[in-house]
């Protein structure tokens, strides 16, 4: 198994900096997603690792071996493209055999390994089909098998699910993740779909403008985003501006907010008196139809409700001009125009420094 190390990688296209000193480690057998909007440099990073793009500065290492100057054919990688890039003039088995032939594997061995790889992706019946005779999902699995049959040091996936329809995409997420764990291969996965990255990855790298905004396991990114941008990019969220009243302990602060005083987990950098941004996920809020009174009770007016299927989303407006959305179970009898009571699960909040935020 291979560990990937990227050190201070830089790449410019004309006068646009695609990568600004990017450093990253992918541990043995780990699946890391590069997540970000288009143009954030995630694909450029992948193409540098594949050898399709030569970085202007920095180094790429597979274990101790510096591969920055190696051409792609000598890097021993398996790559899956967004459009699969199966050779249209070759059958499924010829597509799989290609990489083995390039490695001068003996004929008998090629046939055996091709069959094994196709069994792995459950396509052993499609041996003699041409790619155009296969469905999108099947082509996808052939592309995976073709990348894995050569037993590469690293697997690189460039938006492999973007061309599939929604239900197949969900299914393939688990298929790819399961396959990756069975093979135990170190994997770099590029996607712009945050739920895909969350479901599949050991760690997610969020990138904006050629820089890493945050690296961490999916749960950390969701619960403890490092910036407003990361919070917005991952999951549904809303922000409430706040002022730090006091530090409770190393991990918590007391905040003055339009919703009253709240105690929330916080970035350790926050100090007393500082402007903060409170990240409020919809699941941190509970809504009840009955009008309650009490210190923690916050009355709001329901402006609109949307039926989402598994839940109902309500948009509420509160005193002080704050608008928030909260979810209830589909059976709830809260209707637009009514008053409702909001309670906040403070453990699910997260406070960030508001610096540099408009």
């Amino acid at each position, binding site marked *: 198994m291979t560990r990937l190390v990227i050190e201070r990688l830089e790449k410019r296209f004309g006068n646009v900096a695609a990568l600004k000193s990017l450093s990253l480690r992918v541990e043995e057998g780990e699946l890391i997603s590069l997540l970000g909007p288009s143009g954030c440099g995630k694909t450029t990073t992948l193409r540098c690792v594949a050898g399709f793009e030569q970085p202007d500065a920095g180094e790429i290492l597979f274990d101790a071996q510096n591969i920055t100057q190696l051409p792609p054919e000598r890097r021993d990688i398996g*790559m899956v493209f967004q459009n699969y890039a199966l*050779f*249209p*003039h070759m059958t499924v088995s010829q597509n799989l055999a*290609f*990489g083995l032939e*390039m490695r001068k594997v003996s004929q008998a061995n090629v046939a055996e390994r091709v069959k094994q790889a196709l069994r792995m992706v459950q396509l052993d019946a499609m041996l003699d089909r041409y790619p155009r005779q296969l469905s999108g999902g099947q082509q996808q699995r052939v592309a995976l098998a*073709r990348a894995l049959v050569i037993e590469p040091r690293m697997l*690189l996936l460039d938006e492999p699910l973007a061309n599939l329809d929604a239900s197949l995409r969900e299914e393939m997420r688990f298929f790819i993740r399961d396959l990756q764990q069975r093979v135990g291969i170190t994997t770099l996965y590029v996607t712009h779909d945050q739920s895909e990255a969350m479901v599949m990855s050991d760690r997610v790298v969020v990138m904006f403008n050629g820089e890493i905004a945050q690296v961490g396991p999916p749960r950390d990114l969701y619960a403890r985003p490092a910036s407003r941008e990361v919070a917005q990019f991952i999951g549904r969220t809303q922000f409430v501006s706040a002022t730090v009243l006091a530090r409770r302990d190393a991990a918590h602060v007391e905040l003055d907010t339009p919703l009253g005083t709240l105690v929330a987990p916080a970035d350790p950098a926050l100090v007393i008196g500082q402007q903060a941004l409170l990240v409020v996920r919809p699941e941190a809020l509970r809504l009840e139809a009955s009008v309650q009174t009490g210190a923690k009770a916050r009355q709001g007016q329901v402006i609109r409700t949307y039926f989402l299927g598994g839940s109902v989303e309500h948009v509420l407006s509160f005193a002080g001009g704050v608008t928030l959305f909260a979810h209830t179970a589909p059976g709830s009898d809260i209707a637009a125009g009514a008053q409702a009571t909001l309670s906040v699960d403070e453990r699910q909040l997260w406070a960030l420094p508001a610096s540099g935020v408009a």
Partner: protein
Amino acid sequence: MSGGRRGIWLIAPALVLIGVFLVLPYLNIVLMSLRPPAVGAPYGPGFTTANFTRIFGDAYFLGVLADTAWLGLKTTLICALLGYPVAFHLARTSSRWKGLLYIFVLSPLLVGVVVRSFGWLILLSGNGVINQWLRGLGLIDMPLTLMNNSFGVTLALVHVFLPFMILPLIGAIQSIDPNLALAARSLGASPVQVFRRVWLPLSWPGIQAGCILVFVLSLSAYVTPVMLGGAQVKTMSVLVVQALIDNFRWPAGAALALVLAATGGLAVWLFVRLSRPMMRGLE
């Protein structure tokens, strides 16, 4: 179906045009080739196969037929070798000079065949531009024979037919997903192997179309072989014109023309047949 019937009316003008101006003349040529020669008339009464037996029994005619086929083959091969790199570049470049490059590629077609051949005469003749330069540089004492031989004819044919190779090739190469080359590299193929295993087989439809076009065109070329080949280079079309115009032997000329056409058709059919394995999976 009413839609089908209406369709027939739409293509009727084209059908009539092709029927009257293409099919009927062809049938006339076939008939003419089976007539005996006559003095004072295009052909005599009755039918005969003598015109064909004479061609196939005469080593001279067969030799010219072989020379013509060889000329076509040479021209086609050279066009393919010269045209592929140009087409590859044009298909893949995003340079702002792309439009200009296209004009360069098409330039041989912008000048009429006679004018173009005169241009080659000026360059290639015994005291032409090239020989004068070479002598001026002291590289040769005697002028090189650059024309009135198959070299001059091939050179001029390659020049004019190159666009017919390059244009279909550009189309074929443009339709190839560049990711396929990257996929092949990632699987361990060197650039040479990528060319052999990916670009070449996938551009085969373009190679095939270009080769057929250039081969058929050079087989039937007349003006270029006449002007640059002199008395040394005889091709079938030169013989056809000789028979028709100089000797006024229409049945013999018609038979020669049919043999040339059949040879071309046969060669194309054979080529398509033999390259069928290359086209598998590409439909």
